[in-house]
């Protein structure tokens, strides 16, 4: 298995109360999967992705990615780990504004001192269909184009897994579809492993596997089909609470 999560828990302190963002989540993921993570707002999707991508650490449980126990890594090693094994796509693109599209894509490679960063970055831009815009600054690009650059930046290092936390939330539905089609294509043609959190049913429709998180618990997995009925009642309650 490429990714092995077992018994992950994470709590946050909000004022005086402790919030359980994740409760005893276990999950394994094979190479080449396209996993969508569903769940209402505040259910713990981002927390899960952050732990998977070694951006954050869990309070208990273990995370193995490509055989590496990332809970054991220090700050420096986790940075190196992210650079080698993880690609991240953000909701709001997070491109570096002073650099061109091409330089943004080169950045993760130059961080580790790769010499032939430029041809690889150009190839990645070609993969997302943006090689014509290589020399433009982010401000000259549309939202969809910026997200394509961000995807190119995530795949250019050929990571084990690309994590995208609501990558289409800032895009209109038409552009979202294009982006999702691109992701699906990269998954199918290049075998890139994707984990995407979303509210969007269109996204979940494209995924090869969908898991649902509720109140920090994994309540449904399309692969294993665990869906304990007794938890369904709480869906409404949580969504109500969030709306209030």
């Amino acid at each position, binding site marked *: 298995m490429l990714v092995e999560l077992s018994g992950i828990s994470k709590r946050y302190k909000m004022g005086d109360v402790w919030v359980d963002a994740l409760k005893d989540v276990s999950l394994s993921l094979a190479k080449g999967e396209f996993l969508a993570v569903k769940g209402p707002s505040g259910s713990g999707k981002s927390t899960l992705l*952050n732990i998977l*991508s070694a*951006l*954050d650490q869990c309070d208990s449980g273990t995370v193995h990615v490509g055989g590496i126990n990332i809970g054991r890594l220090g*700050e*420096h090693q986790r*940075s*190196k*780990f*992210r*650079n*080698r094994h*993880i690609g*991240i796509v*953000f909701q709001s693109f*997070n491109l*570096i*504004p*002073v*650099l061109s599209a091409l*330089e943004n894509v*080169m*950045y*993760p490679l*130059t*961080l*580790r*001192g790769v010499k032939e960063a430029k041809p690889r970055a150009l190839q990645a831009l070609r993969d997302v269909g943006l090689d014509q815009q290589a020399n433009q600054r982010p401000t000259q690009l549309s939202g969809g184009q910026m997200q394509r650059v961000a995807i190119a*930046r995530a795949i250019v*290092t050929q990571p084990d897994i690309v994590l995208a936390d609501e990558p289409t939330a800032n895009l209109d539905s038409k552009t979202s579809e294009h982006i999702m089609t691109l992701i699906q294509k990269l998954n199918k043609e290049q075998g890139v492993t994707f984990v995407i959190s979303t509210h969007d049913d269109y996204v979940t429709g494209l995924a090869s596997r969908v898991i649902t998180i509720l109140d920090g618990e994994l309540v449904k997995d399309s692969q294993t089909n665990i869906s304990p009925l007794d938890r369904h009642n709480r869906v409404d309650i949580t969504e109500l609470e969030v709306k209030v």
Partner: protein
Amino acid sequence: MILGWKVALLNILRNGRRSLITLAAVVFGCTSLIVFGGFVQSMYDGMRESMIRSQLGHIQIYAAGYNQYGKAEPEKYQIPSAKLEQISNVIEKQTQALVVAPRLNFNGLLSDGKQSIAIMGIGVDAEKEVLLSSAIHIVQGEDLFPEDAAAAHLGEGLFNALNAEVGDHLTLLASTQDGAINAVDIQIAGVVTTGVKALDDRLLRVNLPLAQELLYTTDVTRLVVLLEETEMTDMAAEDLGKAFRDQNLNLELKSWWDLAGYYHQVVGLFNGVFGFITVIVLVIVALSISNTMLMAVMERTREIGTIRAMGGTPTQVVGLILLESVFLGIIGSLLGLLAGILAAKGITYAEWMMPRPPGSTQDYPIRVFVVSEILMKTFTLGFLISLISSIYPAVKASRIPVVNALRFT
């Protein structure tokens, strides 16, 4: 990592306000250090040259033992006239001396009939002293001329203490070398100032023959040597000392450096003041840079979070931010040098008058030297201070947990 350089440079341009404040702080710091340092240097220089050219000369030559025992028995440690010629020849051969002038020092009383004032007398070779003591200014009256056997120059303070006019006759009393009291008549030819008040209050200059007549001697106390440039002093002193020893002339010598105790005190004091001001300027500059840098870095928290998410290590983030301050520091220090040099030249050109320093009797226009040593030190300091003051903001930025940094809006 070329991209890092580019990001650093472009971030400097992007963050215009921050960059301007930082540059302004560095430029301010450099300019103050250059101007104040150059001013202090010009002050040292002025004081040194005025001491050399009013009293000390570059090198003074005495009979061996004079400096140790001459105070108690001056008459035993004089240079006999007979040897003057020979010594002068040696000096002229060894150094490119402009002037070698004999002086006979004595203490005495000057009386205008009503009151007597203790004076410090010097018998001089009037013609040579015109060159040697060019920093002595005549306030009233005229130069000393060898033909006017009784002519005398009075220090300004001394003159004011007496109830006398230029041209008046006064009586000068002193004890001769064998202990008798002797008196001569002098005529006030002029009133002079050396720039040092304590000296002006007691100074009396007469022609050497008159002083020798008064003291009943043919000897002189010292020979004063004026060189072309003050920088030549050490070499000349060394050569002379060697020549004197070789020829068994039984002489000793001192350079202005040995004699200018007051100069060294002032230099010591002002170096202390300059050091203190340097520290204050550096602290101000450091705080200002550190503060703006902190703000600029915090504004970019999200970007830093992104770099960390892509696998940039905390060290790389620190390096990135320090690189920016290295650029800012270099640019700021270069601009600071330029501004400092311009300010120094401008102030010198404007010829503002300086407030009269304590113990001095002359006004000078403010001069600010451009000293290459100070420029180099200032550049290094300007560069280092911008680097050092960015360490805290850089480290702080690198320590923000990645998740929090990414959440930052």
